[in-house]
């Protein structure tokens, strides 16, 4: 046991009693420094946030401050709290926290409330455990009084409080009311890792039942009395404006009740999706495209390639890379092109909003509470605390639902605002984007062009490394642009300017041209392209120097014990030193390696591929090693590695959003093809044992897969792939 003070934990039960609520409720007053903006928005005296509620019905309800969008957050949060509390896994329930940054701000996101950057477990590691420890102590204190025995003789096991000498026992529900009258103890005892009963175990996901029975509630499933469904006709090109529209035919469609113009287009409202859809089909909108985006992908790449020839803003400089390159015995260079990518989460975007005299209430797979709450408050002229946001399950996001510009949330708000005051005012509106809207109305992983150069000395050692990146900055093109310092946007250079490799000299520079294409973080952000450039170039260098790609990396990582351990583990599990098994007759097989650190975790992967006689190829197997600190739930970690690999492979094999004179060429899964089951390789995940605080798992599995596959293809005899998606012929 580790003893810590309980400062900040508050017994909220009395307030709950007044609302006729649960028996024991504990909150945490987060005594952390909030950034000026969030502090100003906070209620005068910050109220403690409720983190756990024990009901008389013996349920333990955990209030989740982070969105469950597939990455297993709910399971992780529940594990942390339930372990310290010694609750039974089966009695734990989850509830989404309301939008309230003063109480539920994410310390890893500067105090803003939100889920992203693979921070959920790192942010919750302490708070959830402290809340659990406090609840346990109060239950024990209540039992000790009732039974008139010393606290030290009481134990707690799987939701039951026991006094072994007398055989007395009570469950949490039976003790909750008495525990609620206890005060929070001054000192709390957190378990040492060897005392964990749930943390580190492959517990069943807490959302399993909901999600295999169809009961899980997503925004798409919200139905409220009087609710209308809205579809929006969006601009055909970014920057186009509505010139005029003819809604006569649309209004004649049975079920359509209203058509309204909003800043992003024209919305058709009906009682159900299908009627709104038919209404939108019948709508005629004339667009003013005079100021609209009109470039084609070809033009963008050409412009970026020109920029890549000129020095950019320096993001990292170690020594004089130019001089070292000039004096190098051998020089190599390469250029890469990465396309725009759609997030294409399985649940197309949607949002439900009701605005009435009581204020605004929203239902959303909410990933950025602070931003969306402020945006809606401003739109409706309400104080933020009168904008209530219900966080529902999200059917994926991969970054898309965390938009600093609140695009689809505000779009729904604008529709609601347009109805306010009219006959339909006060009716809740569910905005639904069709798959086509989701793919065409924007927010993409930016396209990038990279240029790299390396110099080797006579022994084949890297003495100079130059990396230039050209493409839109994500923060730089968002309302958060003030966070870009010295012209360096981390959303462009992370994973390139913080490499663990010991190059003799290095220089990383960047151009961030502006473009009217709306862009956003996409699972693993900058690492989604930087890892590819770095890791495939390293293989090219290894080949030129006649070195084994693994040996080269082992040498470049000298002294980086954490990285080395991950690399050695993956090499061992992939049987790197043994020859790769032969494939079917005529197949050429290859094996490729990549390693990358992102979100404070280190992941290495070995991919095995087969190139068929007809030039097609398959990715047969991926061996993955990860160090993510202590694995709160190893099975969830494995699942996230599998998912990151599948999502990254999908993009590598066929992901590309392209433009033709400003119009998006893709529209749905028939022309933006994604990974399907036959293409999914066998994935073996190995976790480095660790007692360090947990680091990210939702994103770090992605960056190594595309370079590992490309390196494997090169090893099998294919040419080096310098433009994604991969095309062999």
């Amino acid at each position: 046991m580790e003893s810590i003070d309980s400062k900040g934990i508050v017994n909220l039960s009395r307030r709950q009693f007044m609302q006729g609520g649960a028996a024991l409720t504990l909150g945490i007053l987060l005594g952390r420094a909030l950034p000026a903006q969030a502090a100003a928005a906070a209620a005068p005296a910050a109220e403690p946030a409720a983190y756990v509620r024990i009901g008389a019905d013996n349920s333990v309800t955990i209030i989740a401050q982070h969105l469950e969008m597939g990455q297993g957050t709910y399971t992780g949060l529940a594990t942390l709290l339930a372990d310290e509390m010694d609750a039974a896994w089966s009695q734990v329930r989850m509830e989404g926290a309301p939008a309230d940054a003063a109480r539920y701000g994410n310390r890893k996101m500067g105090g803003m409330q939100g889920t992203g950057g693979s921070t959920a477990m790192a942010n919750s590691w302490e708070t959830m455990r402290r809340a659990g420890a406090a609840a346990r102590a109060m239950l024990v204190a209540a039992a000790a009084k009732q039974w008139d025995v010393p606290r030290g003789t009481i134990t707690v096991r799987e939701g039951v409080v026991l006094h072994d000498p007398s055989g007395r026992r009570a469950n949490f529900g039976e003790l909750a009311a008495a525990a609620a009258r206890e005060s929070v103890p001054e000192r709390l005892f957190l378990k040492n890792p060897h005392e964990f009963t749930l943390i580190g175990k492959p517990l069943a996901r807490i959302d399993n039942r909901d999600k295999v029975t169809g009961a899980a509630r997503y925004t798409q499933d919200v139905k409220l009395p009087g609710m209308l469904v809205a579809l929006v006709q969006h601009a055909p090109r970014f920057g186009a404006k509505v010139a005029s529209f003819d809604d006569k035919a649309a209004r004649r469609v049975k079920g359509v009740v209203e058509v309204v113009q909003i800043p992003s287009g024209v919305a058709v409202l009906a009682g159900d999706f299908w009627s709104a859809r038919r209404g939108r089909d019948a709508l005629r909108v004339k667009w003013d495209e005079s100021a609209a985006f009109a470039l084609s992908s070809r033009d963008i790449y050409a412009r970026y390639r020109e920029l890549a020839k000129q020095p950019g803003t320096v993001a990292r400089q170690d020594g004089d890379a130019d001089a070292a390159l000039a004096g190098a015995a051998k020089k190599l260079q390469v250029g890469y092109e990465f396309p725009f990518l759609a997030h294409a989460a399985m649940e197309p975007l949607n949002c439900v909003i009701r605005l009435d005299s009581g204020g605004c209430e929203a239902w959303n797979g909410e990933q950025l509470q602070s931003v969306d709450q402020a945006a809606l408050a401003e739109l409706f002229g309400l104080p933020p605390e009168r904008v209530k946001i219900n966080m529902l399950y999200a059917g994926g996001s991969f970054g898309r639902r965390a938009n600093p510009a609140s695009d689809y949330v505000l779009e729904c708000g604008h529709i609601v605002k347009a109805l306010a005051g009219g006959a339909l005012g006060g009716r809740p509106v569910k905005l639904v984007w069709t798959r086509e809207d989701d793919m065409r109305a924007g927010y993409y992983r930016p396209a990038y062009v990279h240029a790299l150069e390396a110099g080797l000395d006579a022994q084949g050692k890297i003495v100079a490394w130059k990396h230039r990146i050209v493409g839109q900055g994500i923060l730089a093109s968002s309302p958060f642009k003030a966070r870009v310092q010295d012209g360096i946007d981390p959303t462009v250079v992370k994973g390139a300017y913080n490499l663990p490799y010991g190059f003799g000299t290095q220089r990383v520079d960047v151009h961030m041209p502006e473009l009217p294409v709306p862009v956003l973080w996409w699972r693993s952000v900058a690492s989604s392209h930087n890892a590819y450039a770095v890791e495939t170039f390293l293989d090219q260098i290894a080949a030129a120097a006649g070195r084994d790609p693994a040996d080269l990396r082992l040498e470049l990582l000298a002294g980086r014990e954490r990285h080395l351990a991950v690399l050695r583990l993956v090499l061992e599990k992939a049987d790197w030193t043994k020859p790769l098994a032969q494939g079917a007759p005529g197949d050429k097989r290859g094996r490729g390696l990549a390693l990358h650190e992102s979100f404070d975790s280190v992941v290495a992967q070995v991919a095995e591929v087969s190139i068929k006689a007809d030039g097609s190829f398959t990715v047969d197997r991926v061996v993955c090693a990860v160090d993510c600190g202590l694995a709160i739930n190893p099975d969830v970690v494995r699942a996230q590695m599998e998912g990151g690999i599948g999502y990254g492979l999908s993009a590598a094999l066929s992901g590309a959003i392209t433009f033709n004179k400003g119009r998006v060429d893709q529209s749905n899964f028939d022309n933006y093809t994604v990974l399907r089951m036959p293409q999914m390789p066998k994935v073996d995940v190995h976790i480095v044992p660790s007692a360090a605080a947990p680091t990210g798992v939702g994103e770090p599995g992605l960056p190594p897969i595309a370079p590992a596959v490309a390196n494997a293809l090169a090893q099998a005899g294919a040419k080096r792939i310098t433009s994604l998606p991969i095309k062999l012929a």
Partner: protein
Amino acid sequence: MKLNVNGQALAANVPGDMPLLWVLRDHLNLTGTKYGCGIGQCGACTVHLDGAPVRACLTPAAEAVGKKVLTIEGAADTPRGRAVQAAWEKLNVVQCGYCQSGQIMSAIALIESNPVPTELDIDAAMAGNICRCATYQRIRAAILEAAAAPRG
């Protein structure tokens, strides 16, 4: 229009060309069946019509009249359905979960028609169901597990 869904007779006042997906979701409050693409590409809307898997987004409701519709909400009514759901839980298949109703309905249909599927059979039968969270490896394993489960 009268429909038989999960063994229940239900009525909906909708045009016959409205896709079954939207009748289920917006008019019968059966929201387990999901919208993912609307063009038969993703499989999120998979339901059974007289035991055969169909894409509800492309099936006009009128076509379901006189047939038995089975959705995820009724999946647990059959031993096979329960075995599939149990295997899904045992192997922690789900991530975001949004595709999983469709995956499970496709998996049940596969095992009904091919009680001992090979991995290749599974890949072929499930290729029409997209999972953006890429839970494919676990779906494969869960189908093998469910197929091997004792009947009853």
